[in-house]
């Protein structure tokens, strides 16, 4: 079972923006879309490890700040024809609070 950690509130993240959760296992980027959906992804682009948290969020995607790869926020996969994925993490809302699990979702080998 996942251990949920409270990391902050929705208001802590700007719409179409991201914040970083630091941990001993590397940084996790937490995104907030225009529709207030929240996603958590390992803060490393599968391409050259660019910090995705620094990218421009659009729709359900983020553009890596280094070489403009587009990463799908829900799955962590790169938008074709680019290939690769960043690990995603379970995240849920409890009221206004954002809850994160440090155990990555299955599916992406890049953990």
């Amino acid at each position, binding site marked *: 079972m996942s251990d949920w*950690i409270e*990391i*902050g509130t929705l208001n*802590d*993240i*700007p*719409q*179409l*923006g991201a*914040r*970083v*959760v*630091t*941990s*001993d*296992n590397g*940084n996790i980027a*937490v995104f907030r879309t*225009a*529709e207030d959906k929240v996603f958590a992804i390992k803060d490393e682009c599968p391409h*050259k*490890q*660019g*910090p995705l948290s*620094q*990218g*421009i*969020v*659009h*729709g359900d995607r983020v*553009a890596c*700040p*280094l*070489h*403009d790869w587009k990463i799908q926020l829900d799955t962590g996969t790169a938008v074709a*024809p*680019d290939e690769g994925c960043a690990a995603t993490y379970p995240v849920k809302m409890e009221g206004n609070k954002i809850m994160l699990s*440090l155990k990555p979702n299955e599916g992406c080998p890049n953990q």
Partner: protein
Amino acid sequence: MKERLVVIGNGMAGMRTVEELLKLAPDAYEIQVFGEEPYGNYNRIMLSPVLAGEKTIEEIMLNDLKWYEDNNITLLKGKKAVDIDRKARKVIADDGSEVEYDRLLIATGSTPFIIPVPGHELAGVVAFRDIADVDAMLEAAGKYKKAVVIGGGLLGLEAANGLMQQGMSVKVVHIMDTLMERQLDEPAAKMLRTSLEERGMEFLMGAQTASIEGKDRVEKVCFKDGSSVDADIVIMAVGIRPNIALAEKVGIHCERGIVVNDTMQTFDPRVYAVGECVQHRNETYGLVAPLFEMGKVCANHLAKHGIGRYEGSVTSTKLKVTGIDLFSAGDFTGDDTTEELVFQDAASGVYRKIVVQDNKIKGTVMYGDTIDGTWYFDLMRDQTDITDFRSTILFGQAHLGDSGHGDDNRVASMSDTAEICGCNGVCKGDIVSAITEKKLFTLDDVRAHTKASSSCGSCTGLVEALLAHTVGGDYSVAPHLKPICACTDHTHDEVRAVIRDKNFKSIRELQQFMEWKTSDGCPKCRTALNYYMVCQWPETHSADDAQSRFINERAHANIQKDGTYSVIPRMWGGGTTPDELRAIADAAEKFNIKTVHVTGGQRIGLYGLKKEELPVIWKDLNDAGMVSGHAYGKALRTVKTCVGKEWCRFGTQDSTHLGVELEKMTWGSWMPHKFKLAVSGCPRNCAEATIKDFGVVCVDSGYELHVGGNGGIKVRATDFLCAVTTEEEAMEYSAAYIQLYREEAHYLERTAPWIERVGLTHIKENIVDDAENRKQLAERFHYSQQFMQDDPWEARANGAQQHEFNAIKQINA
């Protein structure tokens, strides 16, 4: 139940339409295709290289049989449509079978014209139209020696070249006195003939074929003047005719071709037609580019999107003979009302003619070096006024301020809308963004992703140069006249006008109003829109959306490859003090800076800072009196100066002082792209003012003002704007010029391409000739600057925007 679409003709036009249709509405129709040839769909225009042995049939297949299966298309291979019952809506095949349709697409192409001279039906007389013809020619080349090609046009010469490559001796018979008279003028035709003769091709000019003679197969070709030549094979390549037999038979209105309207509909509204078989606005086309344009429009209407009209094509011609470059477009003969610009160097085999009317290009013929053909073609199609560069236009676009780069940089100087692949309508911008966004490294990759160079291959050289160029260096693409990005159909200028006229101060509201196709845009359009908002409404802070800025401008530092940042404080006019240097040294030690580097803009960069350290180091630098250098932004960067007359024995004016004043006036301003200034104290120009966006060269009598230069990928020297006598004037002209650029250039368009787009004359009219306008521009700049000149570092060092720099949560296991 699905509607049924029947396509008669399995050629390029028909299948291109189907491909486009599948993209728009993959499930709209059950599709059946009549194809007389026993193959999938192949690239007919590549038959010449196949004949020449440069390509194989497999290489020119566009859609193999599997593609039809994968897309649930029934290919009626080898079946010929012989009748259409338009009332019952069915097509009848030669074997008596019937296929019903809801919509019918006729794409029967064209048939080669065979001169009906006696003997034209003899064995060994072939046309040059399909794979069977090529097979017949290749077979003949294996057995026989002598080939005669009747027709000295594009097709005939390509056939002749191919047969020669196959080892035959080839004579070309042409009824006119010059080759390719429909595409070339006399000088170009002569040069072409000379180089083909050097390759061993023989010509019989002004020769009228009377008969073809032989017992079982062709033996000789006889002419009206009584002479004759021996022949083992005769290629008839005198022209093509739209294939309208079937349409005519069933009563669909035809003239020279099947008559269609702008939506590619024939007079029977259920029946569409595309390709070489159609006649549109009284034109018929035998080239590939129009077919693709037609296909796009037709597919759109078949998919019932109901937008898009085909309005005719402006076409250009290239000859696909390896080693021979020629290009022709438009009206290249001219008349009493036109003028000719001609460059001719017979010894090096270069010829260029441009026909001009009222300073606009009507047509062009080029031979030998055709790389600028696409540029001339663009200028012709857009009817651009060429007054500003008329005297240099014949030397090509590369000549415009290029300071001596290699060939690959000639593609760099093309505009983003310059069409590279005329067949598929792929522009330089498309290719470059595909290469950069998709990380393409090979020609095949570029072909797969963009389709450029995948049809006739004439542009392969250009695509390769573009590839070499783009992969070779860091390169930012300046959009130009086209939609801002895939999120919208609106152009930069349209969007700006709406922001201005309708008072939009929110990106989201603007996108909704202008019917953006995506929910909240993309990095490309959001950054552009944000700049336009900031430029239009400098006093409205909420118009500046941090989330629509690239990270560098959001964090006020430059992100590096490892995710750390660089910090570069401003050094006014390149000057500094011991105190500033001490503060920088202290900061470098305190933050363990690995790299301290003197930048090209006369200041000092500190590299490798973690993001959370930024506000802290900024505080230290602020305390020593330094502010942000904006080295990270599409903004005013630096003002480079030399020490001028204060120290230099050659100095004519106080260049350092003027540089500092200019920087004090302009710092903090956001721009369409980065913007650099320089002031040199004398014409020796040590501050390199003539490769800056705005440069001042001091002279004894005052100040020369230069505009539109840049270093970088493609060096462009400035254009001379004017000379002024006082510092105050230099400042006013500078402010006005900057504001004009801020208001008119497209986002990510530097001053150099902007000036090449709008013309130096336009700048002069606004800045030099119109004193009142200059004053107003300068005032608008100063008005904007009062809201921009807050040091972003200071605010953040004092706690603003903390969420940008701090983690939301630190978790320790």
